[in-house]
């Protein structure tokens, strides 16, 4: 049995009437109002108290003026999936305030701006009224910056109500505004004013409390895009090309920052090149040109960009050129929910392009895996001389995740089968597409190799073992068979799935990517509430390794949980499994643009279990 530190601990009874270190706080604001800083401070302050947290930003595709919700989940057991229910609402947006309040479960709390008069709406909630504008005037904040610090007041109010230590809030503010002392002082005074107001005027009426704990010591908070960027920088990426698209843009923007910090040589020169291309077609074309010439080249995009990269993806497959593409998945096309999360590019990416193409896919579930798979992707791309897609998503890429610090990559870079001048002198020459080693992978040379026999001609699928032009049926068929052997070899090289099995259960769950976080919590709910033990296999790569087949064989029925409508991963599994096993697979689809949550998964499974 393989377990992982990703597996969450089961809950224990606290036996108190207060709900301690277990709540979800939703802050409803208008985007462009500067609430991001306030929310980060609140998240950090709870984290510094030693309580596991996660932060999810639910935002519109807009610069300013539309509603946005930031959800902080604090959970002593380490559950960091989205929680469906909101326990504590900070209502700052007049547009949505009424709906936000009406959607709460009885017993929840609401902190609201006094003029909104929300307390008149319901009698089964706890209301805290805060006169933000009066407090701003009382602390003497100049009129022109009032809008900027208004949101910091609720941080102080919430800190007082939930018993978050103001010292931690102060540390978080200093960190947030580390390069702007004046802004830090101003924001701190606003937070303190909120805290003092709440202390004087808002007696505690609700059940929720944050208590100091020790579960975050040494941990980091980072988003998946930053983790991927750091991973690429430490995996020796040399050429990065991109075209801005939500939710992948911050991956490359952060990569540029990290590369400037850690990848400038002693001579002041860069050991990398980053190019903002004219579109995704050019971005992937540059990656292929660079990969062909021997660079570790990558791009990052989302579904619409993946579509545009289709032709080159096929070229990479047939002409056998290394490339790494991060797909930070979102809903599409065009204006279709570009700021909401999904796992909806699995099937289209697995077979991206025309002809008999199929690609290696990696599925990171955590920020740690964004870091490690950034390196795995390059090693696999260069080893297998083909494009490798890393299938992240908006939830992983853009939201804040708590994690253990990343471990330094000890494994040397795998640059694959590349022949240099000395090799060619020894061998007397080479055949680019000949399967010398029986693994389906040929040897390549890089342009610029100083040997008269180094060059070869790169073209689509019409070539023989010597890379010569051919349209002969046998040559084509042989090459296709070899490409298939290469793909079979990849089965045992992609990251292995993670198995969490009791050895007794006949029911299984298969999931991948960020769905993992809901599954961990859901399995605890199923066990705790229904006495149902579920084995769990988390996929981490495609093509599927033998463990996937074994898992399906070992269970009577398997729920494949994923964040798309059409059971895309289940479909991929069906293509791979022997026919007798197909009826064991059942789809659980989560597809509303929000990250999957445990309660929805649990309810869905129990419905399908007929209970």
């Amino acid at each position, binding site marked *: 049995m393989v377990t992982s530190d990703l597996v969450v601990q089961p809950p224990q009874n606290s036996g108190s009437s207060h709900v301690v270190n277990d709540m979800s706080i939703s802050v409803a604001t208008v985007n462009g109002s500067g609430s991001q800083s306030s929310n980060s401070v609140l998240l950090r302050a709870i984290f510094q108290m030693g309580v596991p947290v996660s932060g999810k930003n639910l935002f519109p595709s807009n610069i300013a003026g539309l509603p946005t919700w930031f959800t902080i989940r604090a959970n002593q057991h380490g559950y960091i999936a989205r929680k469906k229910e909101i326990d504590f609402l900070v209502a700052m947006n007049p547009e949505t305030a009424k709906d936000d309040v009406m959607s709460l479960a009885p017993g929840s709390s609401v902190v609201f701006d006094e003029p909104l008069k929300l307390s008149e709406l319901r009698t089964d909630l706890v209301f805290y009224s805060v006169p933000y504008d009066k407090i701003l005037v009382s602390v003497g904040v100049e009129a022109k910056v009032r809008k900027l610090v208004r949101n910091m007041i609720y941080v102080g109010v919430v800190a007082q109500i939930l018993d978050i230590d103001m010292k931690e809030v102060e540390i978080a503010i200093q960190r947030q505004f580390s390069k702007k002392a004046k802004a830090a002082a101003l924001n701190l005074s606003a937070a303190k004013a909120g805290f003092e107001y709440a202390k004087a005027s808002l007696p505690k009426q609700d059940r929720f409390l944050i208590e100091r704990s020790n579960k975050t010591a040494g941990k980091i908070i980072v988003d998946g895009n930053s983790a991927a960027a750091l991973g690429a920088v430490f995996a020796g990426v040399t050429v990065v090309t991109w075209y801005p698209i939500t939710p992948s843009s911050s991956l490359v923007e952060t990569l540029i920052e990290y590369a400037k910090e850690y990848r400038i040589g002693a001579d002041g*020169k*860069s050991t990398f090149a980053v190019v903002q291309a004219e579109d995704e077609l050019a971005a992937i*074309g540059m990656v292929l*040109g660079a990969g062909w*010439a021997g660079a570790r080249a990558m791009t990052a995009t989302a579904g619409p960009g993946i579509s545009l990269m289709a032709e*080159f993806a096929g070229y990479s497959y047939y002409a056998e050129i290394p490339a790494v593409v991060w797909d930070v998945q979102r809903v599409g096309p065009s204006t279709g929910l570009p700021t909401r999360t999904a796992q909806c590019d699995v099937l289209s990416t697995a077979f991206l392009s025309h002809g008999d193409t199929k690609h290696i896919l990696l599925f990171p579930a955590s920020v740690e895996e964004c870091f490690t798979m950034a390196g795995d992707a390059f090693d696999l791309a260069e080893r297998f001389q083909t494009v490798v897609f890393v299938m992240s998503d908006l939830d992983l890429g853009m939201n804040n995740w708590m994690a253990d610090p990343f471990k330094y990559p000890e494994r040397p*870079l795998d640059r694959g089968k590349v022949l240099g001048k000395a090799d060619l002198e020894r061998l007397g020459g080479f055949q680019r597409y000949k399967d010398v080693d029986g693994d389906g992978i040929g040897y390549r040379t*890089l342009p610029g190799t100083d040997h008269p026999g180094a060059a070869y*001609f790169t073209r689509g699928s019409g070539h023989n073992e010597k890379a010569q032009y051919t349209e002969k049926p046998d040559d084509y068929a042989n090459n296709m068979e070899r490409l298939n052997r290469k793909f079979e070899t990849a089965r045992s090289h992609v990251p292995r799935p993670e198995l969490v099995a009791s050895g007794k259960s006949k029911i299984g769950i298969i999931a991948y990517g960020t769905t993992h976080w809901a599954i961990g919590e859901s399995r605890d709910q199923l066990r705790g509430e229904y006495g149902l033990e579920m084995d769990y296999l988390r996929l981490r790569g495609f093509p599927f390794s033998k463990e996937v087949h074994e898992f399906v064989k070992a269970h009577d029925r398997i729920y494949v949980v994923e964040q798309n409508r059409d059971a895309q991963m289940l479909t991929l599994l069906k293509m791979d499994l022997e026919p007798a096993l197909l009826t064991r697979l059942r789809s659980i689809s989560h597809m509303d643009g929000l990250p999957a949550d445990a309660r929805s998964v649990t309810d869905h499974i129990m419905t399908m279990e007929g209970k």
Partner: protein
Amino acid sequence: MSTTPVAPKVNRIGLTVLEYKGSKTTLCAGCGHNVISERILEAMYEMGVQPERLAKLSGIGCSSKTPAYFMSRSHSFNSVHGRMPSVATGALLANRSLVGLGVSGDGDTASIGIGQFVHLMRRNLPMIYIIEDNGVYGLTKGQFSATADVGSKLKSGVVNELPPIDTCLLAVQLGATFVGRSFSGDKKQLSAMLKAAIAHNGTVMLDVVSPCVTFNDHEGSTKSYQYMKDHEEPLHEVSFVPHFEEIDVEYEPGSALDVRMHDGSHLRLRKLEEDYDPRDQGMAMERLHDAHQKGEVLTGVFYVNPDKPTFLDMLNMTEDPLATLPQDRVRPPREALEAAMAELR
């Protein structure tokens, strides 16, 4: 009587012209593209370019097949339709020590590839970009391309009514630093321009009119051999003196313009139009516009700026090829990761 074998003629790096040959062409007999391939390999031979240092890049079309027909000792990448510029950009970022040669056609550049073309031009990436321009799609049997002139007629009698895209005008405007037009049938001019192109550091864009003998060489076509013979209007007489040779022809003062190239070679333009200065971007655009009005097929070096920083200069990249940097230069040390983690705590 014994004979001593005559030593084969070699260039300045000791290679014979045979070592610059490619595979046998599969294009039509008489195709202008084959002549251009010959001129390219001669220029590379004469300039002493090490074949292994050349990267040949192309898109799709008759023109894009030609890299197979010269210099087999150079790596070549026959990419997808209209996307050669991006592939070339990637390859040269990965290894800046390569000599980049892109071969494209008028369809591959001016229609499907116009987006990538214009962005390549504005980056001034050091490479040579050749358009083998015949005004029609050959591989799909003779449809008009976007460089076809108004009034040009297909064999079927269809007349083109849309104005042509002038790739030279675009290239000058957008920032390419060596822009010219030539004709596959003008051996002397094309050879001189190709050698000057090799000497240049920056984007070279050469539009070479290259008649399609099968689909566009008839009466009524404006890209036929006959039409070019009747309408070619050279701006100047182009000659080239490489940096490793002495200047042996002196022009009368004021009758020729001498442009010192990046590598010390000399591009010499004997003036046919007295006031024309190819170092003046505005003048180049005006003269090209004027040529359109007059219906001339203007040839020569329209614009040259040997000193503008290239895209690689702007990126502040190390001089060593990125592709083959050792692990200790591309994986930061342990302390770097610790520092990054400390910032996230």
